[in-house]
């Protein structure tokens, strides 16, 4: 029934060509960034032609990012803030999701709707008031200010609750007859069984916290408190001969995320598609 217009291997080669072209287009900006970071800034900028490959490579540019661009300090801030937020969101989401999935309490449906309603209130909408609150609490330029507003996540509650609801009722009944109370059931049965969902959320939570820009920008003005992302702002203001250091910092900023992406690809896909794809 199917007539091949061209032999199989020709079609495959055509696909490879197309895919390679698309991949080149997608990677081109990253490649140029790598070129810019590695090349000696004087040679590369003023050398006529600005070649699309690195010239006079200076590998120490990454080390210099740590010293000159305070990347080390920013890394510490970003890492600490991200760690606190991820752990906080994981704990609050698991506890709240447990309540929604396994505990019968009054007004449960209303409270769930209320929780989900916060998805409509992103930080962009509440920024003006929240930054005021932080100022009033004297939490500017502090870990509290950077983390506390993000210690809970409606998305996390949603995802983990889905996972908990998928635990077969029989297992809950068996645990009840085995004498398990809520905490024991949560720790010994519910969490181990839904580990993949929780892991997916942890990855998403990490991505959001690590890449967060608006909030740190709003409540920190002391450069000692810059996160990695905020530190990148300076790149646009750097002189031509310092640009490579700033660009190197940008690459370093994306590195942990890239590692997480490669290692936890499946978890990311699961987390992102929880709402988008059926089945």
């Amino acid at each position: 029934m199917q007539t091949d217009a061209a032999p199989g291997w020709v079609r495959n080669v055509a696909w490879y060509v197309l895919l390679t072209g698309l991949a080149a287009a997608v990677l081109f900006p990253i490649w140029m960034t790598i070129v810019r970071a590695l090349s000696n800034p004087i040679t590369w900028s003023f050398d006529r032609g600005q070649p699309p490959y690195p010239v006079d490579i200076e590998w120490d540019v990454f080390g210099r990012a740590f010293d000159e661009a305070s990347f080390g300090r920013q890394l510490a801030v970003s890492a600490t803030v991200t760690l606190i937020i991820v752990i906080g969101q994981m704990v609050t989401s698991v506890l709240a999701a447990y309540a929604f999935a396994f505990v019968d309490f009054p007004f449960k449906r209303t409270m769930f709707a209320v929780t989900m309603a916060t998805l409509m209130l992103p930080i962009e909408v509440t920024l003006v008031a929240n930054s005021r609150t932080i100022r009033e609490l004297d939490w500017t330029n502090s870990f509290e200010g950077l983390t506390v507003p993000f210690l809970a996540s409606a998305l996390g509650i949603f995802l983990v609750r889905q996972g908990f609801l998928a635990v077969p009722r029989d297992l809950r009944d068996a645990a009840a007859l085995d004498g398990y109370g809520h905490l024991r059931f949560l720790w010994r049965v519910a969490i181990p069984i839904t580990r993949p969902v929780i892991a997916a959320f942890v990855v998403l939570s990490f991505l959001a916290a690590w890449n967060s820009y608006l909030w740190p920008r709003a409540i920190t003005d002391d450069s000692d408190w810059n996160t990695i992302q905020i530190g990148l702002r300076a790149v646009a203001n750097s002189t031509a001969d310092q640009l490579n250091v700033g660009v190197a910092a940008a690459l370093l900023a994306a590195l942990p995320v890239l590692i997480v992406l490669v290692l936890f690809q499946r978890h990311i896909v699961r987390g992102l598609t929880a709402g988008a794809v059926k089945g």
Partner: protein
Amino acid sequence: MRSRRVRNALAGYGLLAPALFVFAAFSFYPLWRVIWLGLHEQNRTGTNQRWVGVNQYTDVLTGEEFRGGLWITAQFVLLTVPIGVVIGILLAVAANRRLRGIKVFQVIFSSTIASSTAVTAVIFFVLLEPSIGYLSDPWIFDLLDPDRAIFAVALTGVWQNLGLTFIITLAGLQAVPDDILEAARLDGFGPIRSFARVTLPMITPTLLFLSVALTVFGLQAFAQIDVLTGGGPAGATETLVFKIFNSQEPRQLGEGSVMSVGLFLVTGTVATLQFWLLERRVHYAN
């Protein structure tokens, strides 16, 4: 019986308490406060405020600042979402096949999700910045031209969204059951017809989700402007959130608050409208 209900209520609310506290303090209270601040005018040091009422809402929401920001934001969304979805489909279709090494391409196409908005801004700074960027002739992505700067900003948005769009669309494509595609093949559908009449309808829920999500993200555009253009040239890229960000000082707090509420309403309306309009064309399997 009674004590069981009490125990359950205590347990349930006890478990919810930490999350609820955060939501109350940093989502609901600020919402109320933003609305409230929008009804007042602050003095320069923020120590005093006076009531101005709903007038401030009508003034600001119909004023130039808000309308201008809304227009710039709308341009950003219109430039990034449709193109982004289409490119995502193209990449996902291309990479959804059994070829040796296809995983490599899939990782490459997903990779832009690793780039935060700030990092993406730096990447395109490297390409587009007038004096030191690689592209000495940036064509329409001209950061110096007030009429065209938004295209440059939109480009960063499209590129950054590629990874996310690709991952989600690919998952949607892979969820199309094999046997349906085989049935189409036996029915005589060639690859293009099969895609248009079978695959595409079956991924419409995914595409709907994607376009609503990208639209909402687009309406919140801030970091790329802050890093790449600083709002310029001459305020040509000042999105709503950018304007809101710059109105945290007491004197502009009232205006900023109204714009925040405006953003909230716009986002809600656009998302709902989009969902409502597009959902009719979405095909849900069974």
